[in-house]
């Protein structure tokens, strides 16, 4: 698949990389030495059966498979399905390779999903590593790396040149939330960075609230979650539009028979209880544009102060709440 919506691809230049759809337990994986980009060319690899494989100028060896290849537009549900879909078990030292070279656009959800996948891999494979080949487009790569900072131990970037002059993208890098105290600290951090980024007080308040209470909500209500929730926030453009995401792997809504119906039941009156109507209410009071999107299973909810709509989409694991705050 190589359509405009992106997702997993078989890149002709990286023919040996498995796509998620073509993955099978006996698919050979590769190990790129840290700091070097994998390229298809001359050097020889030999898989356990003795069959040579030509790949790159870097020596490689077969391991149990774990590779993700993403391309083009990897935002919202594409990010969730790409990074958090089914995965192989693998050995304790399995390497995960994330090939993001052809990625052209990403968003806050991409960073959160990638962070969750990296953390999950390193947790499940204590002796394993993750190698990320960043997007070729320097600006897009900068955004992804910005969202993943500080890079977890065990994550290696290849072909990455850091530059001080890149515009800041991540207000709050993708962060794991383990307990309510983490949620509170993330909210405090969000308030601080919003001020530093000259985001107005009113918007900063909404962003801090969203970070804190959506993260706590995810901790409390994500049923059978396999990973700690992830929170992240980005700021883009002249308008300084801020997007906050809280991503959890709870199965309550996503695995229910009718996720769309479950989401349709969420919207409450703006003077009602709950963090989502509260965000909309504060936004309306200050004449700010606040939009909420929820992606869970095949259900989608879009909610503004003056109305909401639900629809169906690609299946995505867990529940992802995105709050967009604009002037």
């Amino acid at each position, binding site marked *: 698949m190589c359509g405009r919506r992106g997702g997993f691809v078989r890149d002709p230049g990286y023919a040996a990389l498995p796509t998620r759809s073509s993955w099978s337990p006996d698919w050979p994986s590769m190990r790129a030495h840290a700091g070097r980009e994998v390229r298809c060319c001359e050097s020889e690899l030999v898989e356990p059966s003795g069959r040579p494989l030509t790949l790159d100028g870097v020596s490689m060896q077969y391991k149990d498979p774990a590779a993700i290849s993403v391309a083009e537009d990897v935002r919202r549900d594409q990010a969730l399905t790409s990074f958090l879909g089914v995965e192989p078990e693998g050995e304790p030292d399995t390497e995960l390779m994330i090939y993001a070279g052809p990625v052209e656009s990403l968003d806050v959800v991409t960073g959160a999903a990638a962070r969750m996948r990296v953390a999950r891999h390193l947790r499940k494979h204590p002796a394993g590593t993750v190698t990320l080949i960043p997007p070729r487009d320097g600006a897009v790569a900068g955004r992804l790396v910005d969202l993943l900072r500080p890079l977890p131990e065990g994550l290696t970037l290849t072909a990455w040149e850091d530059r001080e002059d890149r515009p800041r993208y991540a207000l709050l890098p993708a962060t794991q939330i383990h*307990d*309510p*105290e983490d*949620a*509170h600290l993330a*909210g*405090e951090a*969000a*308030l601080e960075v919003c001020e530093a980024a000259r985001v107005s*007080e*009113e918007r*900063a*308040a909404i962003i*801090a*609230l969203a970070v*804190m*209470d959506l993260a*706590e909500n995810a901790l*409390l209500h994500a049923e059978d979650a396999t990973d700690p929730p992830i929170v992240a926030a980005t700021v883009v453009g002249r308008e300084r539009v801020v997007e906050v995401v809280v991503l959890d792997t709870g199965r309550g809504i996503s695995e229910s028979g009718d996720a769309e119906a479950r989401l349709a039941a969420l919207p409450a009156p703006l*003077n009602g*209880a*709950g*963090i989502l109507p*509260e965000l909309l209410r*504060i936004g309306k*009071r200050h004449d700010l544009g606040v939009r909420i999107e929820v992606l869970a299973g095949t259900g989608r909810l879009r909610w503004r102060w003056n109305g909401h709509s639900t629809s169906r989409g690609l299946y995505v694991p867990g529940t992802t709440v995105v709050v967009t705050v604009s002037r």
Partner: protein
Amino acid sequence: MSLTPHVIRLSRRGRALGTRALGEDVSQEVREASRTASALIVDFQGVRVASSPFLDEVACALRSAIADQRQSYVLLANLNEDLADTMKLVLARRGMMLGALDGEQLEVLGGGPHLQETLAAAQELGTFTAAELAERLAQKLPNLHQRLAQLQDAGVISSEEDPTARRGRRLRFNVADLQSAGC
């Protein structure tokens, strides 16, 4: 009546106060303080934002403090516009009222304009009997007693036996002089 209240300064916990768990921590602090303090103020000075689950926990703890120690003044202080608005919604959902101090001005969050008017008049008098306040507001006594009960429930006034009463039992009401609170 001048009191030195126990002040719980929430800015110690941060400028963004959210999560029910943090609200429970503050509630615990309120409960402990209310056992000994004759007046209690929860000061939001320096707090930029607080979520409704957090405020709900705090409001319930204050309501319990008022119910347990009716002689105490229990007030919120220095809420910004957003905080006051969210707190009013929280109180409305609970069917509660709480007193709030803004500078030297007291108001009843969750109360109607009639209570605000009664409180303003009571604040001017400082210490008063129901009859004195009724006269000032040109209200009938039963009506005024109802308002005074609501203000006591909100924690903004207290009452004590009037030792100067010549016959029977008479109450004197106090609105706290909170200038010494440092809020």
